[in-house]
């Protein structure tokens, strides 16, 4: 643990500070969007978007190194593909007569396949592992700007339209009857989710996105009485998991993504078991 703090203050190890700052700042959109994903029950949609992103990352790498367009990188590809997937999924839920799960599956797999093919055709060696399982230590200054931008975007959009998003998640049909353009708000929610997932992919990798998006919110949901409380609680939990995960991964010399997820999963398990246990005790006592 002491080592971890020494590493943080070491001027020769800037990437460590970047990692921690990014991790803590990104807990805000993770907590807020994660809460919506949990209460609206769209974690499979989040999964499809995250896997699709590999297609965008691959295309970005291919354009950058294969075609030599240096200003275009994997982050641009990831953002474009994530938003595209959000638009497709929102349209399918509106017009697609219950075929949503097939489309989710198709996007999930096709996105990954396209990504791997692009990477195969990109000159030079690229290790897809860091995209699949994340590596927060690869985070650069540019990523920090992305995180700050996303923080501002998510806080302001959700802050302004909070009541409409709440109604959309609680009772979409009723919200529609009150004159809210529910399909536009659903699309907006999916786009914010997509941008958040792009960031999550950076922190924990494609495969583990769903865990860090939903576990903090699911734990918070066991105690929270309102969505607002759930968001605050999920954000705090998320930053706690990222902080402890990073420090543990440094001390134990383990990859950071899986350590963060395992800590989150253990906490989730403990809260589920303990709240069940407390309820049983109350029942027996009563």
């Amino acid at each position: 643990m002491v080592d971890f703090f020494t590493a943080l203050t070491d001027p020769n190890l800037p990437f460590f500070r970047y990692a921690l700052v990014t991790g803590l700042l990104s807990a805000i959109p993770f907590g807020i969007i994660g809460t919506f994903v949990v209460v609206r029950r769209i974690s499979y949609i989040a999964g499809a978007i995250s896997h699709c992103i590999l297609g965008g990352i691959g295309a970005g790498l291919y354009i950058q190194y294969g075609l030599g367009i240096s200003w275009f990188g994997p982050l641009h590809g990831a953002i474009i593909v994530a938003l595209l997937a959000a638009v497709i999924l929102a349209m399918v839920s509106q017009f697609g007569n219950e075929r949503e799960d097939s489309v989710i599956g198709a996007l999930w797999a096709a996105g990954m396949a396209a990504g791997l093919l692009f990477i195969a055709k990109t000159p030079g060696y690229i290790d897809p592992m860091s995209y699949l399982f994340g590596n927060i230590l690869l985070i650069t200054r540019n990523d920090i700007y992305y995180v700050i931008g996303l923080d501002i975007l998510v806080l302001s959009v959700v802050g302004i339209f909070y009541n409409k998003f709440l109604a959309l998640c609680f009772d979409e049909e009723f919200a529609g009857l009150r004159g809210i353009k529910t399909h536009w708000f659903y699309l907006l929610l999916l786009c914010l989710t997509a941008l958040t997932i792009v960031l999550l992919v950076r922190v924990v990798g494609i495969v583990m996105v769903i865990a860090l998006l939903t576990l903090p919110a699911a734990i918070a949901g066991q105690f929270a009485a309102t969505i607002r409380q759930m968001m605050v609680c999920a954000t705090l939990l998320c930053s706690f998991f990222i902080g402890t995960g990073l420090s543990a991964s440094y001390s134990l010399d383990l990859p950071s993504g899986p350590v963060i997820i395992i800590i989150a999963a253990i906490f989730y398990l403990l809260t589920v078991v303990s709240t069940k246990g407390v309820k049983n005790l109350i029942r027996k006592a009563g």
Partner: protein
Amino acid sequence: MTNPAISIKQVYFTYDQRPTLIDVNLTINDRDSVCVVGPNGGGKTTLMKLIIGLLTPNSGTIRIFDRKPEDAYKSISYVPQYAQYDSKFPISVQEVVLMGRLGSSFTGRYTKEDREIAYESLKNVDMASLAKRPFSALSGGQRQRILIARALASQGRIIILDEPTANIDKESEDHLFEILGRLNTTMTILMVTHDVGFASKFFKRIACVNREVVMHPTSELTGDLIKDMYGGDIHMIRHDHCCSPEGHSNG
């Protein structure tokens, strides 16, 4: 003569080429109270969704106080079945009721007036003391009343309730009818139910929906007819396509 609250003329509706409603003609006057009954799959819910504008008919016209359903959302207070909610959703009673005020502003922020109307609506169903409680902590009957309060907060002139008596106990049911009785002095009531028994006590007219829609005055309802309806055999009821609230003129 004022415009009818709901006017439906020659409406046809098909789901996937399967006719669900055929030649529906229905006029519901202001401050009328109509109970909609019929077998499952007979088209009750479809009829409600047509009236509130969630579905559009294949042909025919529907008017709510002379407006198209999609433009008339401010005239309608809607109470959906409470069974469809996620029972663990973290939301307070007050937040649920305030949802009835949505649609008045671009951002969806609530004004002081919205909060006052929401509070009045809660008082109207005797639930003002529970405003701060989590919705998930309430009993079935209490949640039903909260959903009615949310509908009242919309301040429509017609209240539409979808199976409000499913899953609630006898006491809550009596309370529900006490509330509806009060509301009927100012509002038109349209309610879908399975429970034809008490429908006869309260409603002025009954609409039987089984692909076709036929109106009956409640005075015509006898034990045998109720039994027939429960069996889904609505054709046993003598159909008179036009009837006044007073009943049929000929025997």
